[in-house]
């Protein structure tokens, strides 16, 4: 329950018009009530209620823009009470002013204007946000790396990525134009996971920016991904400290994901041991969560929990129920990528195909494995 911070406090006298900020009994937010007005005048003023009870953001005007609108909202008249319900909930930390203009109500001889300033305090400050993880985990990354994922410990605010996230040379030298300026920042809905793309125009061999500036990263060089404290969380708190991830650049990876090189370690029957897949190269962290599923011999998806570790080279699956002996399979989405955008069906920038050859593989690859009993037999 929030407390109100108000600038004026006094006790009401009976039957005197008064203003109050109270919970909206019909809704979930707060409203402003004007009490003890003349019911006849309230009924007759009709649409003029907009001038009788006004609520606005306090002191928002500036020199050349001073006729700002009031807060958008609805007014209800109930006898001698007028209620203002804002269309948008009052925002913590913003100062508001409610004005009750008794003169506009038409009370003869009464020109009083009551004001009531109020605000709702922001939530008690929590710990400052920090960067909890960056993927890919490795600190040796290929020249044609396509994206990073940056995970924050708290939901963040959008709009500050371009100014606060950058790649620099490890010695501090600038490495301009490495990251893509996306038209929309690529957050997930919880606003804790941000996708940061490197510039596809520079990654794609032969496209204009690649011809002009070369690839974003140079083999053998050392860089740093920096996330600055200008990144703020939903409460307006900045990062506790600047976060950096240092990395060295190795040769590009320009090949399809080689599923045939995956190692499958099946679990034992009647256990809930994890199924383990090990990949020869790191795969895309986000894609691994949903890109591989486990299916029983009968074709039904098995529910369970995914775990990713060893620099995104190991994927483990712990089923909710014990494994049954028999053949199962893993199904791999054709959209599964590695950190460079290569998929099971082709490299990120693959050789040009003629129009007749163009197609998109949508086949789901399937890799069977057998769950055996403890003695090696089902």
């Amino acid at each position, binding site marked *: 329950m929030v407390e109100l911070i108000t600038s004026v406090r006094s006790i009401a006298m009976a039957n005197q018009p008064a203003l109050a900020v109270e919970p909206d009994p019909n809704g979930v937010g707060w409203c402003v009530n004007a009490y003890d007005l003349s019911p006849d005048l309230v009924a007759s003023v009709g649409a003029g209620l907009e001038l009788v009870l006004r609520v606005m953001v306090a002191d928002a005007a500036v020199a050349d823009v001073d*006729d700002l609108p*009031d807060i958008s909202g609805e007014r209800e008249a109930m006898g001698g009470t007028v209620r203002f319900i804002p269309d948008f909930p009052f925002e913590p930390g913003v100062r508001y002013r409610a*004005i009750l203009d008794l003169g506009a109500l038409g009370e003869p001889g009464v020109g009083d204007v009551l004001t009531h300033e109020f605000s709702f305090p922001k939530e008690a400050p929590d710990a400052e946000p920090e960067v909890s993880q960056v993927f890919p985990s490795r600190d040796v990354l290929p020249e044609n790396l396509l994206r990073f994922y940056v995970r924050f410990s708290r939901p963040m605010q959008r709009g500050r990525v371009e100014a606060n996230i950058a790649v620099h040379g490890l010695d501090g030298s600038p490495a301009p134009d490495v990251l893509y300026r996306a038209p929309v920042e690529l957050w997930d809905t919880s606003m804790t996971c941000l996708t940061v793309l490197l510039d596809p125009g520079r990654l794609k061999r032969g496209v*204009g920016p690649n011809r002009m500036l070369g690839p974003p990263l140079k083999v053998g060089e050392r860089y740093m991904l920096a996330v600055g404290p200008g990144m703020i969380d939903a409460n307006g708190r900045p990062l506790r400290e600047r976060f950096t991830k240092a990395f060295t650049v190795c040769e590009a990876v320009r090949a399809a994901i080689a599923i045939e090189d995956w190692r499958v370690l099946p679990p034992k029957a009647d256990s809930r041991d994890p199924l383990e897949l090990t990949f020869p190269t790191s795969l895309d962290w986000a894609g691994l969560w949903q890109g591989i599923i486990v299916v029983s011999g009968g074709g039904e998806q098995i529910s369970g929990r995914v775990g990713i570790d060893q620099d995104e080279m190991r994927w483990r699956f712990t089923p909710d129920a014990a494994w049954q002996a028999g053949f199962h399979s893993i199904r791999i989405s054709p959209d599964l990528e590695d950190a460079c955008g290569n998929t099971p069906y082709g490299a990120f920038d693959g050789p040009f195909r003629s129009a007749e050859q163009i197609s998109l593989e949508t086949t789901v690859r399937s890799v069977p494995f057998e769950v055996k009993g403890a003695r090696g037999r089902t």
Partner: protein
Amino acid sequence: MKDHSVSGLHSRRDALGLGAMSGVGLVLAGSFLGAEASQAAPLKSPMPLLAGPLRSAGAMTFGPGDVLFVGDIMGSAVHAFALRGTDLTPQTGVLLGNFHNFEGATLVQGLDLRLGALLGTTYDNVVINDMVVHQPTQQIFLSVERGRGADVIPAIVKVNRGRLELLKLDGIPHSKVSIPDEPNETARLEFEPQQVYAITDVKYYNDEIFVTGISNHRFASTLYRIPYPFNGQKATTTVEIWHPVHGEFETRAPIVRQLILDVGGEPYLFGVYGCTPLVRFPLAALKDGAHVRGDTIGELGYGSNPVDMLTFNSPFDHKDYLLVTIDVRGGMQIGVAELGTAPPEPTGGAIDFGPGGLGKTQRELPIRTEHMAILNPRWGVAIWRHPKTAYRVDLGTLMSPYFFDRRFGMSEMNWPDGPDPFQYREHRNEVDRV
């Protein structure tokens, strides 16, 4: 923000006697309304839901018959609101400016300040995502969000003769289509990353909407083609678009902005990619499950982030032009007639200024706008940041086809006795209105 003392207030407030407290007391909050107001029935119905089905409000476009389509990234949907007559207000008579003298008019000064005041927040806590014009009424619609976090409050705001009004969505006939998919029924575990399709553009053409976007988990170039009215089934078309590069390679390329035009009797979709080329697809090729390689017909230049893509008809030569505004530098204008005939660039190189290329009509324009739309053949409307303040964003008109305004530059005709080679003084009373 300046702090106003009572004496410095606007005269209207002085008349109200603001600050002159009477002996009347103020009641503190804390008690519920309870029994005090039970005597009379309310004169108005309970508060209408304002946000309604929207979880966020992004790219917009108008469809046929006053239908407003709104892209909703957080809600994974595109909404269709069939606006009623009461939701629209003809803007007849609104001053647009002096066309001959390159003088536009400010339609809303301090748009961000006014939006903040209207939505009950500070000016810097409102984001304007898109702007579209309802052509029959010439009314301007904005998609805005209060807040920048996970719990944004979306709103559609209309401009009505210089004043801002919220579009009350409650009661407007509404339908939607889930994009990319229906929300997964199985609960997503909290620590798992969620896949989001960031809708970048929505366009309507011939009983269908076309939706482009960027995924946060895959480098996918999915384009959705969805019949409207939305039928119960999810009859979408997913197209993977491959982009030819240097004649050697091909890659996937998400479309950032798109426009559908009839050129030479055939409909085409023109798109701008994040890696800068301008591409063309015959609409007929964008079939369900098809994987189409667009023709690259030009490049916008490195570092470009296309902001708006629109067409206008020049009031001088009456030809149609495509205009792409770019965030780091003005805009690019290209003749529409040439878009259909421009040969595809096998190299994806710079715009060809030769006789066959787009360079003939391509021109850079000195516009730096945050949002832009076309009002009518003589006027565009734009939102731009005031050059001298940190906070002010204005909405105003720009004459077509140069989209240049004298107010933003030094000009000799601004002095009463200065030279006037273009006869501005002679034409100074000729104003256009809606």
